[in-house]
C-alpha cells in the first residue's frame, strides 16, 4: 500500500499528531512523509500541491487538526477519493480500509469501510507515539501558485489565546463553566491549569457570554477532546458538552449541585463550592507533583 503522510508544522517544528501518524504509517509498507513549505496553510495552494504529489498513493493520511481536515477534504474532492475524517484507528481489510471514527457529534463510535484509494484524517492522540521514535524523514514540497482571488491580510490575536498547549493535543484540560460566575474569576482556573500543565477549556455558556474566547469551547459545537485528565469546574454536564469530552480517560467534576449530570460521567466528583475547592486542589496537585 503506497501511503503518503502529509505532515503539519507549527513554527517550523512537526506537530505531535504528524509524528504519531508517521510512526504508525511506517508499518504500512511504502510510506513517504511530505510537508508543504511555508507556515501559513492556504487551502488552494496547498491542496493542489498535495493532490499532485500524492495522486498515485493508495492512502493519504493527514492529522485531524482544523487545517489537516480542511486540506484532506479538498484533496479528496480534487482526486475524487473516499474520505473519512477524524479517525481513531485504521487497518487494511479485504482490499479496503476499515476505520474507527466518531459520528453524531461524538455520541456514536462507528466502524466504517473506506474504499481505497482514500484520504483519511487521524485524530491527535489516537496513535500514541512510542518513546524514542526517531523523527521521520520529510520530503518538502512547494505549494502551488497562490490564488489571486484570495489573499491573507493579517492576524488578529485573541487577548488570552495562544499561550498554552492546544486543546486538541493537551494531555490535561481544566474547563470552566457558568459556575465560575464571571471572567474575572478565571485566575483560579489558570492556577490549577498551570499546576497540572493543562490547557484551558470552557462550556458554551461561557464562550457565548464572551467570558472566554470561542476557541476554548469544548463540546458538540466546540472541540472534541480526549485528554488523560479532564477537570470540569462549575459545568452542569449538558448533553452537548458531554459529546465533546466523555472520551477523556479520567474525569474530575466539581459542582455544588449533587444532581448535576456531570457527576454521571465523572470518575471523581466533588459536590461543593468550586471557589473553596479549587485553590486547595491546586495546592494538593503541586504537593503530589512535588513542585511545591
Amino acid at each position, binding site marked *: 500500500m503506497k501511503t503518503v503522510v502529509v505532515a503539519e508544522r507549527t513554527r517550523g517544528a512537526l506537530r505531535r499528531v504528524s509524528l504519531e501518524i508517521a510512526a504508525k504509517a511506517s508499518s504500512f509498507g511504502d510510506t513517504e512523509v511530505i510537508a508543504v513549505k511555508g507556515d501559513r496553510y492556504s487551502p488552494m495552494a496547498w491542496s493542489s500541491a498535495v493532490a499532485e504529489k500524492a495522486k498515485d498513493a493508495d492512502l493519504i493520511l493527514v492529522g485531524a487538526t482544523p487545517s489537516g481536515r480542511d486540506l484532506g477534504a479538498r484533496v479528496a474532492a480534487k482526486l475524487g477519493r473516499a474520505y473519512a475524517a477524524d479517525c481513531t484507528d485504521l487497518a487494511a481489510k479485504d482490499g479496503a480500509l476499515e476505520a474507527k471514527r466518531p459520528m453524531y457529534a461524538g455520541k*456514536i463510535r462507528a466502524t466504517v469501510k473506506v474504499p481505497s484509494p482514500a484520504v483519511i484524517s487521524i485524530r491527535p492522540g489516537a496513535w500514541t507515539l512510542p518513546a524514542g521514535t526517531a523523527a521521520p524523514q520529510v520530503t518538502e514540497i512547494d505549494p502551488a501558485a497562490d490564488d489571486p482571488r484570495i489573499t491573507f491580510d493579517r492576524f488578529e490575536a485573541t487577548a488570552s489565546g495562544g499561550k498554552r498547549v492546544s486543546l486538541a493535543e493537551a494531555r490535561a484540560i481544566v474547563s470552566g463553566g457558568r459556575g465560575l460566575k464571571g471572567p474575572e474569576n478565571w485566575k483560579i482556573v489558570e492556577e490549577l491549569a498551570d499546576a497540572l500543565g493543562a490547557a484551558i477549556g470552557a462550556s458554551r455558556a461561557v464562550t457565548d457570554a464572551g467570558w472566554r474566547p470561542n476557541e476554548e469551547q469544548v463540546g458538540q459545537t466546540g472541540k472534541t477532546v480526549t485528554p488523560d485528565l479532564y477537570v470540569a469546574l462549575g459545568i452542569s454536564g449538558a448533553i452537548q458538552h458531554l459529546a465533546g469530552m466523555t472520551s477523556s480517560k479520567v474525569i474530575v467534576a466539581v459542582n455544588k449541585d449533587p444532581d448535576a449530570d456531570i457527576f454521571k460521567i465523572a470518575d471523581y466528583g466533588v459536590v461543593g463550592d468550586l471557589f473553596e475547592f479549587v485553590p486547595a486542589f491546586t495546592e494538593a496537585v503541586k504537593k503530589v507533583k512535588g513542585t511545591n
Partner: protein
Amino acid sequence: MRFLVCLKQVPDSTVKVKVGAGGKAVATEGITWSMSPYDEYAVELALERKDADPTTVVSVVTVGSARGRDALRQALAMGCDDATLVNAPEDLPALDVAKALAAVAKEMKPDIVLCGKQASDDDQGLVGPAVAEFLGWPHVGMLTKAVSSGDAWELWREVEGGHEVWKAKPPVVGLVHKSDKEPRYPSLPGIMKAKKKEIPEKDLASLGVTASSPKIEVVAMELPPQRGGGKIFKLDGDAKAVAEQVANLLHTESKVL
C-alpha cells in the same frame, strides 16, 4: 449581494442517540430533527449581513428526503428569502451531494456559498471544501465573521491564538464555525410567512448528477463505553482534606498525575 447557505437536517442536539436494530445506523423512530448546528450559525451569519444591508438575498438549499423541508422552513422563518429542496436518496455519496450543491450554486450565482464546518450526523466536514472544489472557487474554513470591504470580503478564520483575516473577491465558499451572535429564533410573523412560501424541488438528473462517487459504508455502530460509578466526595468544610484525597487518587489510582 447573494448568499446561498447549504444546510442539512440532522437529529436535534438534545437527542440521546441510540443504535438502530441492524446495528449500522441510528434509531430514528420518534426523534426530533433540526438544522445541523453549524448550518444554523451559517444562516445567522448570512442574516447578520442582511440586517446590515437589506438588499442582501439569503437562499437556502438542502439535498435529501422531503423531511428536510422542515429545516428549510426553519431557515425561512429565521428570515431567509427562498429555499430549494433537491430530492435525493439519504445514502447519496458525499461528493455527489457536493456536486448537486455546486450545480445549484451555478444556477443561482451567489456571491458567497456558506456551509457548516461539519454536519453533526456524519461529522465529516467534507461537503463544504468539495463544493468549493467542484465550483473551482476558493474557500475559507473555520469562518466566524464575513465583512464586506469594497469589492472584496474580509473572511475571519479562527486558528489557535486568534483569527487569520483573508481578503477574498467573490465568489467564494465559507465553512462556518460560529456567527457573531447566537442563531436567532424564528419570529412569529417569520413563521407565518415561511408557512406560505413555496419550496421548489429539483431532482439530481436535472442537475446532471448521478450517484457515482466512492462512498464510505458503516459496518458497525456502538455507543461510547458507559461511564459512571465514580467516587463522589462532599465538601463540608474541609476543602483541603478532600482536595488532597482527590489529588492522591489521581496519582495512585488513576495514575494521571
